């Protein structure tokens, strides 16, 4: 039996983009026609709620519930409401949204039209990282084609519903992927995250009701509306619904990104799809879903990759794109690279993040380069406790940065100890990384 893989059905082996004609020939824009032509916004919201779709950007928040906080009264309808697609893919080790953007831009646009219709947004933005030049160009062309066809603009398909859509190409910085930082950036400001409440659903872009969703999340919407919540639920192998883009990078035989039923086991993804470890390498651990998730180890290979199971194991599914730690790569150097990344990408607003992360990076640099002391482990433990606590900072960047560190200290403590005892990195020639 072949798998039902809705998100990648238009993805070709050579990754050439699917244009409007090819997209419609393969059943495209039927979900949009069903939503706008036959259903009401509350109908659509109910379908998405019933589907149990959870946000694919990393946090896994139920999409229907997120949308349900958007005010739908007449007062709200009197002004603008916004839908924003978060295409600011920058989480270390994450390369799934690029695939969807470059191979099937119309899928995202159709999903966005359905999402915008559900919350009755009149303006939609695709906030895309500056480096995704090809994706931005393809999206602009696809949006223009939709305006020509009457799928965007005034009175879509004679329904009386209006929606404008545009692409906003960013200017760098990882923090723009945090939804309130993204809103600040879209308003032309420094991308500082905002304290919540108020939540963006009530007061977001320009102080108006705003929904921010990840690319992969939005790509699911019209499929669910067209084929139903039960169909979507049945795609998942565990309590979570739908399919998921899973990726594997690091020293495996066949690194890549695949759409699979959500709940596929870690072992199947790494050993079957990624071909297992490259010759001469053994796996020691992995980050399940990007740079800000906790390490898991060989003991966790038979876990289902879903939100609940990975969460219970002490990590997060995050973006679903795994990074493999092999036996020839230094765990301390690995965590140091991540910590230097997060220190560099801190927006600088909250003190624990701005001053704490460079401190953690410095301690890790000392240990990696043979200058570590036994007290450094206590310092790192205190940093994990303080910086990792949710609520000490506006956003989750700093707590996320602590996740790989705290789990590395748990699973690879002997490696830290060997650096300190031997005053050198046991993985590097002459101690140089």
């Amino acid at each position, binding site marked *: 039996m072949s798998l039902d893989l809705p998100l990648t059905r238009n993805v070709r082996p050579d990754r050439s983009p699917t244009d409007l004609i090819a997209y419609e020939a393969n059943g495209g824009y039927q979900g949009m026609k069903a939503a706008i032509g036959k259903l009401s916004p509350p109908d659509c919201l109910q379908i998405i709620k019933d589907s149990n779709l959870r946000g694919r950007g990393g946090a896994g928040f139920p999409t229907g519930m997120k949308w349900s906080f958007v005010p739908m009264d007449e007062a709200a309808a009197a002004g603008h409401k916004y839908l924003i697609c978060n295409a600011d893919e920058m989480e270390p*080790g994450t390369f799934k949204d690029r695939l969807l953007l470059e191979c099937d831009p119309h899928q995202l646009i159709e999903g966005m039209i359905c999402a915008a219709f559900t919350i009755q947004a009149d303006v939609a933005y695709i906030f895309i990282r*500056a480096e*995704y030049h090809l994706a931005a160009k393809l999206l602009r062309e696809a949006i223009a084609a939709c305006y020509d066809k009457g799928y965007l603009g005034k009175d879509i398909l004679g329904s009386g519903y209006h929606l404008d859509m545009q692409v906003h190409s960013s*200017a760098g*910085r990882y923090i723009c992927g945090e939804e309130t930082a993204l809103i600040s950036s879209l308003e*032309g400001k420094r991308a500082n995250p905002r304290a919540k409440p108020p939540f963006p659903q009530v007061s977001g872009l320009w102080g108006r009701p705003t929904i921010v969703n990840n690319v992969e999340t939005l790509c699911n919407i019209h499929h669910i509306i067209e084929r139903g919540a039960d169909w979507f639920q049945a795609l998942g192998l565990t309590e979570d619904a739908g399919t998921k883009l899973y990726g594997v990078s690091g020293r495996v035989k066949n690194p890549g990104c695949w759409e699979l039923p959500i709940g596929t086991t870690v072992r199947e993804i790494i050993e079957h799809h990624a071909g297992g470890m490259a010759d001469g390498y053994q796996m020691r651990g992995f980050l399940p879903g990007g*740079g800000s998730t906790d390490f898991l180890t060989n003991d966790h290979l038979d876990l289902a990759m879903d939100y609940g199971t990975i969460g219970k194991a002490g990590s997060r599914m995050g973006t679903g794109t795994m*990074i493999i730690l092999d036996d020839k790569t230094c765990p301390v150097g690995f965590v140091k*690279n991540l910590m230097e990344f997060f220190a*560099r990408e801190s927006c600088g607003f909250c003190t624990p993040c701005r001053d704490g992360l460079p401190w953690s990076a410095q301690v890790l640099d000392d240990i990696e380069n043979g200058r570590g002391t036994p007290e450094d482990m206590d310092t790192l433990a205190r940093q994990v406790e303080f910086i990792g606590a949710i609520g000490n900072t506006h956003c989750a960047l700093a707590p996320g940065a602590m996740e790989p560190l705290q789990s590395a200290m748990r699973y690879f403590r002997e490696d830290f100890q060997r650096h300190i005892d031997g005053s050198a990195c046991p993985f590097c020639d002459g101690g140089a990384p």
Partner: protein
Amino acid sequence: MWTGERMSELIPVIDEGEIALSAAEIAEIDAEIAHVPYRAAVAIDALKIVQAHRGWVSDESLRAIARHLHMSAAELDGIATFYNLIFRQPVGDKVILLCNSISCWIKGCDSLQLAISKQLGVGLGGTTADNRFTLLPVTCLGACDKAPVLMVGEDLHEDVDTQTLRALFQGEGGGV
């Protein structure tokens, strides 16, 4: 990756030399202003537009943009210096964005950087003497299955090795 010395170079020098934005720059910026509630909201777009025309954003350009957007130069500089792809000092004809995030690190981006630096004669943040290239680090480029990766201008290069570098930077520096 700014060092202390480089940081001091970024502090704007106040002088009396003012410039005007070109008609093309103003037209592009005004097209963006049409979509937003107030002029300063297009600050990042305006910086990108002027940078596209002039290669970088000088103090004079910054003040000209600020005047056009009815905001203070200080506020605009706070925005410009926040974003790593707004250049407040001159860059080469093409910017090399070298990914040094985790998957590329595992696959050897550090030695790749050493090889590039050796071939071009520049470190991170440096511009080659012939002004063709500027080398900068960048956050994960979202092509981790093809690590290590880098961008030269708008082009992504995957599975980069010394052979790739030789082809990309032929005729530069002493060679690898």
